[in-house]
């Protein structure tokens, strides 16, 4: 995010949040943003895949198999970022009682879980040609697995509580506890891994990153980021319609759409 310094920026952000914090306004704003985000996602994804699958040269050690990294790594990054975003949204909704923040958190969870799952599956697929095993207890994969459980737990808690407000606040506490624990879990898993597998079956020994690999990686990361933003807007819009169904503007919308 860079350094945000300056009261002006923060004030503008607060004003923006106030203006678009109302579900109705955000619904309309998100509706306008979706096509742009979707277009950017498609563009970046196509470019990134071309660069990654054709343009970048084969690796000296791993041949062509390393190319799965262009999907694995961005998804791993996004899975972490989505959890942070989810925790921030959820905490804001809990502390300041902002319903839109609750909805953003709820919408982020399944997206984050999918990123984590993709990272796990691609990690597993990467491991097979390399080491002949479908699953290796690599430090990063193990952390991803635990992160996956954190996501599933969050979604399960939300799903099992009927009252939307209680569900949102309960899962906010869970998300905050999760965020605090993530560095501890990472450290513990990394330490555990180095202790038990010195002759490592590890994917963290990535091929040396050359510029030719960095560019597709960045493009793919941005593609997945915009994918997240697109899907977030789409999901939040449905969540808004669901939770605001008692209001006049939603009823009017449904009537005119029919």
């Amino acid at each position: 995010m860079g350094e945000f310094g300056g009261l002006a920026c923060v004030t503008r952000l607060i004003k923006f949040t106030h203006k678009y914090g109302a579900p109705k306004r955000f619904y309309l704003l998100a509706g306008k943003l979706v096509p742009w985000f979707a277009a950017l996602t498609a563009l970046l994804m196509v470019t990134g895949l071309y660069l990654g699958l054709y343009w970048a040269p084969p690796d000296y050690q791993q041949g062509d198999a390393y190319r799965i990294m262009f999907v694995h790594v961005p998804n791993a990054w996004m899975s972490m970022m989505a959890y942070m975003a989810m925790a921030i949204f959820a905490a804001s909704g809990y502390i300041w009682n902002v319903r839109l923040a609750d909805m953003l958190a709820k919408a982020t969870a399944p997206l984050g879980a999918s990123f984590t799952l993709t990272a796990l599956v691609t990690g597993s697929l990467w491991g097979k040609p390399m080491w002949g095993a479908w699953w290796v207890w690599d430090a990063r994969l193990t952390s991803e697995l635990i992160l996956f459980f954190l996501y599933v737990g969050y979604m399960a808690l939300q799903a099992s509580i009927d009252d939307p407000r209680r569900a949102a606040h309960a899962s906010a506490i869970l998300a905050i506890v999760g965020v605090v624990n993530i560095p501890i879990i990472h450290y513990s898993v990394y330490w555990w891994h180095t202790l038990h597998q010195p002759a490592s079956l590890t994917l963290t020994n990535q091929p040396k990153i050359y510029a030719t690999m960095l560019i597709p990686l960045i493009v793919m990361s941005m593609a997945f980021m915009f994918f997240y933003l697109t899907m977030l807007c789409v999901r939040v819009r449905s969540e808004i319609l669901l939770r605001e169904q008692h209001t006049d503007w939603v009823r009017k919308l449904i009537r005119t759409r029919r």
Partner: protein
Amino acid sequence: MNSKGLFSVRALSCARGDKTLFAGLSFQLNAGEALHVRGPNGLGKTTLLRALCGLSRPTRGDIRWRGERVSDLAEEFTAEVAYVGHLNGIQGELTVLENLQTAARIFVRRKDSAADVETALARVGLTTSADRPARHLSQGQKRRLALARLLVLRRPFWILDEPFTALDAASVEGLSSIIGEHMSTGGLALIVSHQAFELPGIRDFELARFCKARR
């Protein structure tokens, strides 16, 4: 037990899930006064009472005790409120006497003093059951035990949700006189009850005034 305190509520609004139950609710309560909150089932009377004691977070509004916001006072306010809800809040495995004795230790600050437990039991007519495990009591007896706790805790502000449930006519009269005494010594009370009871000086408060059919 003097409470010169003023309990005031302004523009209170509560929601259950995403539906607003009531909005713009305001009233004031002074020492020696009692309010009887009335309304049909499902309107939000229990939610209102829970929001007033601090168990529930209202969506909007200002609740003040002795002129200061309840959210700022936190434990200072909780120390002066006694809440008896739908659940009795008694531990089945402990005897009647033990329930009140632990309540005196957990809920009364060192600087305040708890009333005598045996006197409280006598007042609600549970002296003979003092050593029985609470789970062996009848519904009416359990309710009376929950109310005995009110006497032990000696808090100025009583918030009672259906206190007369499962009580027989004699006990209803007994409880009414207890509340009457509490008011005459300067206490405040907020009561929700479907059952008829006699309490001189109690004001009626219609919750329906603050509910709308649709948002």
